[in-house]
Every structure is written in C-alpha cells, then in structure tokens.
C-alpha cells in the first residue's frame, strides 16, 4: 500500500503498577499525545478504544473512558481485542475516506488490579474446558512449549537462553515492566516452575499499560508531522479453538495473517525486506516460533538464531529489541505497544534499544489460547 494512512504519534506507558486509575492513565496518554502533536480532541475524527470488559469488571467499559480520552459527542467505537486490531480498524476507517484522523487508545491494568490470566481462563468453553478445570493460559502454553521443544530437538536450557536473551533486551528499555539488569540463563533457570517446562521467567509479567496512537490520512499526516510512519499492510487470521486438535509447534494463523499483510505491502521476501519485527510472544518460545511462522527466519534456525542473540538490535533483522511481551504484557494493549515500538524504531527514536536505521517493520498482536488469533501490521518510513 502506498502512502495512504500513517501513524503520526504514539504515547505509551507500561509498568508493574502505574499507580493511577484507568481513567487517569487513559487521560494522561491521550493528553500527552495531543500536546505532543499540538492538536486538541476536535482534530480527531474517529476514536477507537481497545479494552476488555471482563478485565475491567464492568460491561460497555468504554463509556467510562470516553470522557477521559475526549471521545464524548464524537465518533466513537470500541474493539474488544488486542489493541493492534484497533490500529487496523483505524486504518480501515481512514482508507474508507470518511475520516482523516483516528485516535487509538488501548489499555489493560493487570499489574495488581486483576489477574492477567482471567481473560483466557474465561474465554474457554464453559461447557467443557472450564468444567474440567485443567486448561488455562499457562498449562496450554506449557503444552505448546513442549511441542515446540520436541519438534526442534531443544531442551529446557534453550528455553532459559531464549528468555534470558529477550529479557536482556528489555533490560535496556525504560518502557517495560520487567527490567532485569544482568539477567542470564542461570537466573531464568532458578525461577520457579509454573507448568513444566515453563518457569516464571519464561512467562510474561503481570503488567499495567496504556498506549495511545494517532493515525491520519496522507494529506493530514504531513500536516501533523515531518516524519509520518506509513501503514503498508495488515492482515489477521484465527485458528481453531480446539487446541488439542492443532499442531501446537507451529502457528498457521500467524503465517496467514503475515501473508495477507505482506501481499498488501508488496513484500515478497520478508526475511530480507523486513528490518525489524516486534512480535507479541507471551512465553519465551513464542518469538522465534512466530518469526518462523511469518517467514522472517527458517523454522529450524529461528530458535538458535534468536536465543544466541543473532537477531539482536545490530542484526539486519532485529526481533523484539524492546524486550517484547516477555518484558511487559498489558493485556489488550500489547499489540498496540508493538506498533508503537516499531514507530519509534522507524523514526530513530528508540534510544537505548534503537536497532540501526530500519525502513520496514512488522508489528504483531495475538489473542486466545496458544497463538489462536494473530494480527500483523507492516509499517514503513
């Protein structure tokens, strides 16, 4: 896709405990972003919120946030999925031609206010899986980790190395929850088992987070910033709910989402064209699994290249230089944060985690159990 829709600004925060009400957090994120762009709420044509009623403990929860984000008496809508889908929604609204600007606001407060595991636990089939009580986000991920390790002949030491690598990237990122200076394989392998082979440091940390993104049509984008980041393509796909019938060592839906995004972006060889990928790997094995599914690395080489740091910020293709979702996972905002991380990388504003001078980036978000649903956005400058 040519220069049609751009991201012109992002503002996000993540942490173990951001210490504010959700309304205040959303307000701060939006106010900060509008001030940064020098506009007010009337410059926004379409407000798109992404949050989860179940995690908020109230239905139609956006009605409480419309005030703080400035959406009252404006065009307002909501996505009850990971925030990257709100970015896609925003792009579609602008492409449709009736809107010149869209504000995406995604948030999830699972640091201390509510368990991050609730969303997946209560997404399970109430008439079967919930009755048996065996399946949850962590036990499902453990079985997926086992399948992935077995497929590639890897041991738990690899899982420790992969986690240590991704967390060490996050250690230099000021914007993450789990900032572990000097984290190494030994530290990861000494964290407690949750469901074998997954230990605590193989799994994402409970996180508070909010992410605001302003998108605009080509003409408006150039008025709002000198350096718009263009949306080149997007795609999404969902696999079967019945995880026991899936081959857990792969994610065909991530591959299909990426294929659609690449087709739109005119990317025929993603491994050589994409300079930077920010994927929502919630568990240590997922970033390389996703990278391979999306054609960014070979299936066999991906786990080794990732865990050994060969896909670090100095590599031609950097995978999760931010520390990824293993360093911060604000449920519902994580995919939007991946877009925001890609935005600041493409603009050369990523500070300590800057990965060279990327021109084309991939951002990924997921929902569901064991990578069931995946959405991919390609961004370029």
């Amino acid at each position, binding site marked *: 896709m040519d220069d049609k829709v751009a991201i012109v600004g992002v503002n996000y925060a993540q942490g173990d405990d951001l210490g504010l009400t959700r309304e205040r957090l959303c307000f701060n994120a939006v106010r900060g972003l509008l001030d940064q762009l020098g506009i007010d709420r009337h410059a926004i044509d379409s407000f798109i919120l992404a949050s989860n009623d179940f995690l908020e403990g109230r239905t139609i929860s956006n009605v409480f946030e419309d005030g703080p984000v400035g959406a009252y008496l404006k065009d307002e809508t909501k996505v009850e999925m990971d925030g990257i889908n709100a970015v896609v929604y925003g792009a579609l609204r602008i492409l449709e031609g009736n809107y010149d600007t869209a504000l995406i606001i995604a948030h999830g407060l699972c640091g201390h206010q509510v368990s991050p*595991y609730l969303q997946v636990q209560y997404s399970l089939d109430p008439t*079967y899986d919930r009755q048996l009580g065996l399946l949850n986000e962590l*036990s499902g991920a453990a079985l997926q980790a086992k399948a992935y390790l077995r497929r590639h002949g890897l041991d738990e030491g690899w899982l420790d190395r992969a986690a240590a690598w991704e967390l060490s990237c996050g250690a230099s990122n000021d914007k993450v929850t789990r900032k572990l200076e000097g984290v190494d394989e030994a530290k990861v392998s000494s964290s407690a088992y949750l469901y074998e082979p*997954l230990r605590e440091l193989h799994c994402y940390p409970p996180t508070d987070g909010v992410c605001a993104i302003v998108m605009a049509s080509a003409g408006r984008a150039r008025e709002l910033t000198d350096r718009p980041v263009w949306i080149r393509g997007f795609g999404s796909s969902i696999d079967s709910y019945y995880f026991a019938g899936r081959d857990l060592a792969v994610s065909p839906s991530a591959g299909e989402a990426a294929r659609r995004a690449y087709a739109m972006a005119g990317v025929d060889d993603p491994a050589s064209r994409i300079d930077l990928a920010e994927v929502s790997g919630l568990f240590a094995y997922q970033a390389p699994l996703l990278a391979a599914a999306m054609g960014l690395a070979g299936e066999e080489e991906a786990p080794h290249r990732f865990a050994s740091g060969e896909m670090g910020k100095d590599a031609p293709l950097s995978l999760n230089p931010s520390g990824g979702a293993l360093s911060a996972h604000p449920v519902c905002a994580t995919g939007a944060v991946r877009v925001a991380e890609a935005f600041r990388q493409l603009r050369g504003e990523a500070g300590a985690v800057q990965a060279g001078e990327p021109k084309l980036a991939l951002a990924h978000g997921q929902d569901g159990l064991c990578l069931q649903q995946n959405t991919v956005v390609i961004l370029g400058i």
Partner: protein
Amino acid sequence: MEELKETYFTPVVPLDFGYNYRLGAYLERYLDGLKERKILGVKCGGCGDVLVPPRMYCGKCRRKLEEWVEVGDRGELVDFTVGHVSMSKGKLSPADPYAIGLVKLDGASCPLLARIKGVEAASLRPGMRLRASWNEAAESDYLVLDHFGPE
C-alpha cells in the same frame, strides 16, 4: 492545590454469579456415555477423523458429523505438563506437582486433555500407553472419567 494521591485498591469489587449454559445434544450424549464407561466420538464422513469430545461439525470439512462411534478407553500419551501451581478464577496457588496430558485414545483422531495419575512424573514419556480410570461417584458428570493411569 495539594496533589491528590491514588494509592488504594479499594473497594474490592466481587463478581459472583453463575450462568446456566445449554450443553447441546452432542456433549450431553458424550456425558451420558461416560456414565456407562463409554467414551463416545463422532466420525466425519469426509476426512474420516473421529472427534472426541464430539462436535456437530468437522472443522476441516465443514460437514455435519452424524456417525457416533465408541473409542477405546486406552490410548497413547502425546504430551504432558507437570503443574506446580493451580489456577482458580485467574489466581495462581502453589500445588503439589501433578500431571496433565494429551491422550490420544485408540480410534480417536485428536487427543483428550486429562489428568494423569499413578505414574511418576519422571517416568512420563510421550508414546506411553495409558488407560482410563473411572469414578462413578464423582460429583460432576465431567469427572466420571477421572484420570488416565498405567495400562
């Protein structure tokens, strides 16, 4: 004006209510089968897959599944995990290690997630044979098929 602080996680807001779901005819028949120590599946006339627990449509072929079959109460361990925590309402609590695994029953095309007992965690291996263990006195129909143990 003095800056107001936001410090307290109060009040605690419980959500405590239940839902009555209809099971659907297929799951109802499956649970009735368990009471007779039968594990029932449905066979797809298109791809030949046998789905356990039974579902009305084949995900691969989009065909309605109408042929009921009884699968074996023995099968092969596909994979397993040993839990060191348990999860209830999203909250993790420490637990004595316990095993859960995917068991592919003889005659079924997809594995069933189940508790595994009677085998030391260190001895669990994919491919090992397991057999269903029943508990007709279970409080819930779902738990009549209690666990899988050594064949």
